[in-house]
């Protein structure tokens, strides 16, 4: 009873304070249709605490973990929650395939492997100090709250270990971080927070994904209809819904076809699919074409039509990487060359001694294929034919016959990278370290692989080569405004169809039976010819004069 009186008093005061017509509209409770508003990338909306006023955050702080302790003093359960998520564990076991995935273990076809190189790579671990296997994953004060939550833009991370002197110079001379100011600035993560790592995957801006670049920090609506600062200004977490520091949306296990849609109001906060907001019939049925478009949802991922091109907005992505040319030096030192100017005017490296050659591209038309959401990784444990022409880092399955599959857009990444020629496996390369084997600084691939494999007790034949690898990146960001979406004729066309290579389906306009068309054309042409001949004979018949006579 007391609780209900309290609630009533609360409602009354709310009504009185807000006043006017609006108050009557919201009486006695807010309408059920008032859906949760998506998280925008900006100052906290409707929060109840101002972190700049917290005693605990006055500082001074001498290290990141000290800030974390202050955070956890109030957010008592957050450490436990956080340590379960992939930003912390870098580990994921696919429940369907049983494959051990996660950045901690995987090999990609960019910088190849984080494993053994954590001193460098774990700059993007949401924690402090992971430089080798001794890192304590159970110490919650090692969590880095700031990298995701600070909003001053002055916070940065440096490698967790020194590395070769040739490399560590890159990180020298940065201004000191005012940890107290940074700690007081915390908000819900903005695009720039997530982007600090996710826009720079693969070792540089947009190198890896193609659809995630620094252009999305403050994108115009034309680059991304959801994130546009002149539009909805969504934060990443508007779609990557978060519950207890676990995020929706996974590249290891993609929801290729959401069959549930929005659910009831307030539901569906567990997926990052388009359908979870837009529903299963996303196009308003005000025309026949829209009716057909809603049908297409069964076969075509939203992204296929609504992301006509990726690596837009002026930032290029790497589409081809060649490790075979890595290791060239000038006067015994590594160097790099700029050879590509992207649309925003920035120069990009096309050669680095530490990594080899890169090929860039932008405004790319994706590859399209049936995709059931299941990625099959070539891991360090996978054996393959060493003579193979190429290896798929993450192959995927999907077909027209599979009910979960839809046609998805992909970025195709192609790389020549080191592998164990004798055993037919990929290799862990020891890139980062203070020792003489670390490739970055010493440029000895044989020694780097030898150590990279030995450090983890892996079987290595001692004979390495380079193999062509391909990785596939489902494209899902940089959703263009609807007026830029693909038109029907972009796919339903006899030549130049976007889906020219997609098999297993008959597509009107793209497909036809050649023989039927030939026979049909001959038939119609034959009829016309017959008519012509018949008419000519009539015309020249001697008794033509009476042929048209009325009886």
């Amino acid at each position, binding site marked *: 009873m007391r609780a209900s009186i309290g609630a009533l008093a609360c409602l009354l005061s709310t009504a009185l304070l807000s006043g006017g017509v609006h108050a009557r509209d919201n009486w006695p409770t807010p309408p059920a249709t008032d859906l949760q508003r998506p998280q925008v990338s900006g100052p906290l909306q409707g929060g109840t605490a101002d972190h700049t006023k917290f005693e605990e955050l006055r500082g001074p702080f001498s290290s990141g973990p000290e800030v974390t302790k202050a955070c956890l003093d109030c957010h008592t359960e957050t450490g436990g929650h956080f340590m379960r998520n992939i930003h912390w564990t870098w580990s994921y076991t696919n429940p369907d395939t049983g494959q051990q995935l996660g950045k901690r273990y995987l090999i990609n076809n960019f910088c190849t492997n984080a494993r053994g190189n954590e001193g460098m790579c774990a700059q993007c671990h949401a924690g402090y100090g992971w430089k080798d296997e001794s890192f304590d994953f159970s110490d919650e004060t090692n969590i880095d709250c700031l990298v995701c939550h600070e909003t001053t833009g002055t916070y940065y991370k440096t490698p967790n270990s020194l590395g070769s002197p040739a490399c560590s110079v890159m990180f020298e001379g940065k201004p000191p971080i005012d940890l107290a100011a940074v700690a007081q600035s915390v908000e819900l993560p903005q695009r720039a927070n997530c982007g600090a790592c996710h826009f720079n995957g693969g070792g540089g801006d947009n190198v890896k994904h193609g659809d995630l670049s620094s252009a999305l920090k403050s994108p115009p609506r034309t680059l991304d209809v959801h994130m546009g600062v002149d539009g909805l200004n969504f934060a990443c977490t508007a779609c990557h819904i978060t519950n207890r520091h676990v995020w929706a949306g996974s590249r290891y296990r993609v929801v290729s076809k959401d069959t549930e849609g929005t659910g009831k109001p307030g539901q569906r906060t567990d997926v990052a699919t388009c359908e979870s907001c837009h529903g299963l019939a996303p196009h308003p049925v005000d*025309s*026949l*074409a829209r009716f*057909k478009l809603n*049908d*297409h949802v*069964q*076969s075509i991922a939203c992204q296929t039509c609504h992301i006509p091109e990726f690596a837009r907005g002026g930032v290029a992505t790497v589409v081809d990487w060649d490790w075979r040319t890595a290791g060239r030096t000038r006067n015994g030192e590594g160097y790099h060359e700029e050879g590509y100017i992207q649309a925003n005017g920035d120069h990009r490296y096309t050669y680095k001694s530490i990594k080899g050659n890169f090929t860039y591209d932008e405004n790319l038309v994706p590859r399209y294929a049936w995709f059931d959401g299941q990625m099959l990784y070539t891991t360090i444990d996978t054996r393959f034919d060493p003579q193979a022409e190429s290896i798929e880092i993450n192959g995927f399955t999907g077909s*027209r*016959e599979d*009910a979960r599959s839809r046609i998805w857009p992909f970025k195709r990444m192609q790389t020549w990278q080191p592998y164990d020629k004798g055993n037919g496996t990929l290799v862990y390369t020891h890139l980062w370290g203070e020792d003489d084997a670390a490739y970055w600084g010493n440029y000895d691939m044989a020694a780097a692989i030898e150590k990279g494999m030995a450090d983890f007790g892996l079987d290595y034949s001692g004979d390495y080569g380079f193999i062509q690898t391909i990785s596939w990146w489902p494209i899902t960001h940089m959703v263009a405004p609807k007026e830029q979406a693909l*038109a*029907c*004729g972009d796919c*339903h*066309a*006899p030549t130049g169809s976007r889906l020219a290579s997609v098999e*297993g*389906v*008959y597509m*009107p*306009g*793209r*497909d*036809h*039976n050649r023989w*039927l*068309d030939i*026979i*049909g*054309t001959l*038939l*119609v042409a034959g*009829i*016309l010819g017959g*008519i012509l001949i*018949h*008419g000519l*004979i*009539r015309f020249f*018949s001697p*008794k*033509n*004069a*009476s*042929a*048209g*006579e*009325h*009886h």
Partner: protein
Amino acid sequence: MATHRVKIFSLFERFWHWTQMLLIFVLVITGFGLHGFHHVFSFQDAVTLHTAAALSLLLLWAFSVFWLFTTRSWRHFIPTASGMWGVLRFYSYGIFKGERHPYRKAYWRKHNPLQALAYLMLKIVLFPAIWVTGLAYMFYFAWRDMPHATQWLNGIAEVHTAAAFLILAFVFIHVYMLTTGHSFRDHLMPMITGFDEVDLSPEEEAYLRTDQPADIR
């Protein structure tokens, strides 16, 4: 027996014929566009026009079937061999000699045997083939999860296309036929005014003069 000008095509029949002509014209143009033979329309516009015309035609056909059976006009289309040979001989030989068309329209038999058979085949074979496959095609997404749906769609699309070619062929012959026997205009006018020369028995004439004087001139 005497020849009279009699109303053999009612207002509905004429409306049916010309609306059907217009819709088939739209369907043929947009359909072959969708098939990739030309690019007069965008795919989306072609689909919209094609589907709208197809649904309109189905509605028209629903009325026409009702009309055919309630007015007993379906009997005009009962196939018969009687007189067929004469008509075939005329089109392949006699016409060049300037012979008269052997067929005389009767009040309850307004099409010659070849015509009746051609129209009947159109009604019971080609049209059903194209609208049944057309509907299946349009509602593909309602049955796409059935086994072998892709193969079925492939077959349906081929039947649809084949029927379209045959209907186009029919249209050409149909129009050409207007130039034979009578003049083009004489063939065309009945479908506009409704009146044509028909052989009437004295009983038919008496009936019309008494009960439907407006239908006989």
